[in-house]
């Protein structure tokens, strides 16, 4: 080894002097950072635009316009026999209540002193929702003693009137609209000033049932929320025990061979199967083969269970794997059986991970629409609130995302606003579930 064979050493230079190559590398790094920031900001911009659009379009659904009308419940019309017999009172249909509503509105308008070109009660009725008669009839049937009195009702305004006060319907929009005229809008303004028409929080949107095509102002998400709730009960009750049992067996007990490998690959594949496929499977297996009722949350829940299972199995196995083998070895070393080691030591430590996975799986199932299309949960379905546990599982019902999809399809633009409002509620649910998952992970997760 001689010094002569070494090349001439480079000119000694301080590391602090930046040469061209270092510059290049620094620039590359700066560029990469800029790309990263750009990517993150594009994502954020999209998120803001999305959330903004949802809020702007949907927030209107949480406000509703009401018309305060004192209605004289005329005994001559509502109870001809005068015996206050509930069967007699029920015989008067909502069509029989319409004249009462029309007259009451006419009198209210005249009493408020608002002058209008509309002179007939029938014309004025366009201000009110078609649900008014039903609302009064329900009250009368529940309290027959009210007949003969004048009762102040807070009736829903028609969707166009509601839209006008919210700024959704413009004056120039209604010129060719047969449902309402500019004269109605003028009258709306006057009645709004007189305090007859008021805007208030729309509790019925959160608690109510779906409504028909002709009265979007009455539609609510409540019943389909219950549908979603019962579906989630089924999903939770089935997929959690089955998923956890399957993963414990696969992870802790099953021998490692071709067969278990095959199962493992298939579970990962199932997790990636498009959800509509599970819908077709649910239709064939639960409705056509097992003859479970159409449109029932039970069937929806079973179908979504199929979809959620792989998610839960994968996350459970991951959290079981993350428990260090030393825990198992220690338990086995002091004489625990394999099952004791798993259930007393491994499973409790894996629990936070399992729960997180389950909640994420449930959130996914909650927002899923496609499989529900095939098992008959879209349409005019969510109309009757279930009156018990069995009816909650078995009576036809919709689910939140399916209801939103249905509203978005309907002709009246007022339903479009409801659909956006429904998205807000759905998002609140999903965010709550995700936050619970994060809190669980943060609080209980152990690191080794």
């Amino acid at each position, binding site marked *: 080894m001689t010094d002569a064979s070494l090349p001439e050493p480079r000119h000694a230079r301080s590391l602090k002097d930046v040469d061209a190559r270092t510059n290049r590398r620094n620039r590359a790094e700066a560029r990469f950072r800029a790309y990263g920031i750009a990517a993150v900001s594009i994502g954020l911009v999209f998120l803001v635009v999305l959330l903004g659009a949802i809020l702007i379009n949907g927030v209107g659904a949480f406000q509703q316009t009401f018309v305060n009308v004192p209605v004289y419940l005329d005994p001559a019309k509502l109870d001809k026999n005068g015996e206050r017999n509930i069967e007699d009172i*029920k015989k008067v*249909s*909502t*069509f029989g209540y319409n004249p009462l509503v029309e007259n009451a509105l006419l009198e209210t308008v005249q009493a408020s002193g608002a002058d209008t070109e509309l002179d007939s009660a029938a014309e004025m009725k366009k201000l009110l929702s*078609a649900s008014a008669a*039903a609302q009064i*009839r*329900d009250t009368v049937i529940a309290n027959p003693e009210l007949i003969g009195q004048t009762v102040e009702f807070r009736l829903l305004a028609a969707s166009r009137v509601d839209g006008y006060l919210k700024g959704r*319907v*413009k004056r120039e*929009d*209604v010129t*060719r*609209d*047969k*449902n309402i005229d500019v004269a109605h809008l003028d009258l709306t303004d006057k009645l709004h000033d007189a305090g007859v028409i008021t805007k208030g929080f729309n509790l019925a949107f959160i608690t109510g049932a779906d*409504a*028909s*095509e*002709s*009265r979007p102002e009455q539609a609510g998400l409540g019943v389909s929320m219950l549908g979603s709730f019962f579906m989630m009960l089924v999903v939770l*009750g*089935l997929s*959690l*025990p*089955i998923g*956890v*049992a399957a993963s414990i067996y696969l992870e802790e007990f099953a021998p490692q061979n071709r067969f278990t490998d095959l199962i493992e690959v298939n579970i990962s594949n199932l997790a990636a199967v498009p959800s509509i496929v599970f819908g077709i499977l649910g239709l064939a297996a639960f*409705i056509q083969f*097992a*003859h*479970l*009722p*159409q*449109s*029932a949350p*039970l069937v929806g829940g*079973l179908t979504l269970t199929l979809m959620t299972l792989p998610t839960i199995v994968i996350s459970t196995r991951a959290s079981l794997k993350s428990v260090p083998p030393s825990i198992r070895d220690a338990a086995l070393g002091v004489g625990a059986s394999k099952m004791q080691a798993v259930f007393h030591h491994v499973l409790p430590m894996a629990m936070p991970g399992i729960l997180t996975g389950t909640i994420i799986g449930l959130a996914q199932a909650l927002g899923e629409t496609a499989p529900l299309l095939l098992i*008959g949960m*879209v*349409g*005019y*379905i969510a*109309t*009757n609130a279930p009156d018990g546990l*069995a009816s909650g*599982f*078995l*009576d*036809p019902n919709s689910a939140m995302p399916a209801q939103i999809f249905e509203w*978005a*399809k*309907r*002709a*009246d*633009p007022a339903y479009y606003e409801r659909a956006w409002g429904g998205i807000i509620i759905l998002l609140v649910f999903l965010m709550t579930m995700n936050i619970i998952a994060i809190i669980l992970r943060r609080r209980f997760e152990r690191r080794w």
Partner: protein
Amino acid sequence: MSFTKISTSVLALVAVSASAAAARDNVQVAGSSTVLPYASIVAEAFGENFDFPTPVIESGGSSAGLKRFCEGVGENTIDIANASRAIREKEIKACGENGVNDIIEVRIGYDGIVFASQIDGPAFTAFEPADWYNALAPKVLKDGELVDNPYSQWADFNGDLPAVEIAAFIPGTKHGTREVFEEKVLLQGCEDTGAMKAMEESGMDEDAVEDACMAVRTDGKSVDIDGDYTETLARIDSNADGVGVFGLAFYENNTDKLKVATMSGVEPTTETIAAGDYPVSRPLFFYIKKAHIGVIPGLKEYAEFFVSDEVAGPSGPLANYGLVSDPELADTQAMIADEKTMGEGM
């Protein structure tokens, strides 16, 4: 062993509920999305006025609804199929094979099909069936000869129409509306332009001519919309030159975004449709499974309520929404009261 406990109890619950499913107390309806709005209005009023639960109405198209209707008799099958066209022979046969023999056909009224474009878009104000044939057919008659459709703009064949690219959004083949569109517009246009005659002279047999007349070009100028009218509206909203096919009721709910064109010089309104002047209209139906009457509570009551004067009459809520009420409603009412099936004559 709490997992075993939970899973056994859940399985038990499922088993119990499956057997409880035997008793259904609500009417189940499926079918045409055109009839859905009307059916939902009736179902809502029915639920309000009767002690029966509100019927469940699913959509999905006339053909899909009739297919499910014909799956058999029993609690697990639907009671009523809504349809925006009459049931076909083929479907009656399929029904019969599955034991669905007694079907009551109920005509609820008429519905107009309108041709509308963006309100601020080009001036599509008047159409003839021939225009639609020229715009959409794969083969048209030009200078006395049948040629592959050479037209790319509306003005190419009718100078009164705007000189914009043809972009037509028509209902997909699973919709009953498509059939009416083919028969009343395309077939008529085929005849009017003389293309039909030319095809007959070229030696095609009658069925082949009819099929050729109702075919639609596949080069992207005509788009089949398999979803609902809202999807068509969204397409028109984003394409100022687009022309779409809508139901009259849908158009009337969206007059702030759409403008309608006349067909053969007649403007579509409930009056012109009722009078029979507007050419593109069709009857709407629903079909009742007679075997379910008396088994499913409220089925007959729902049907009777649907066609009652208060509901389906000229001043009822259905007419308010856009249905053209049937002048022969009294006959329909009598038919349901007697439970007259299709075979027994109307």
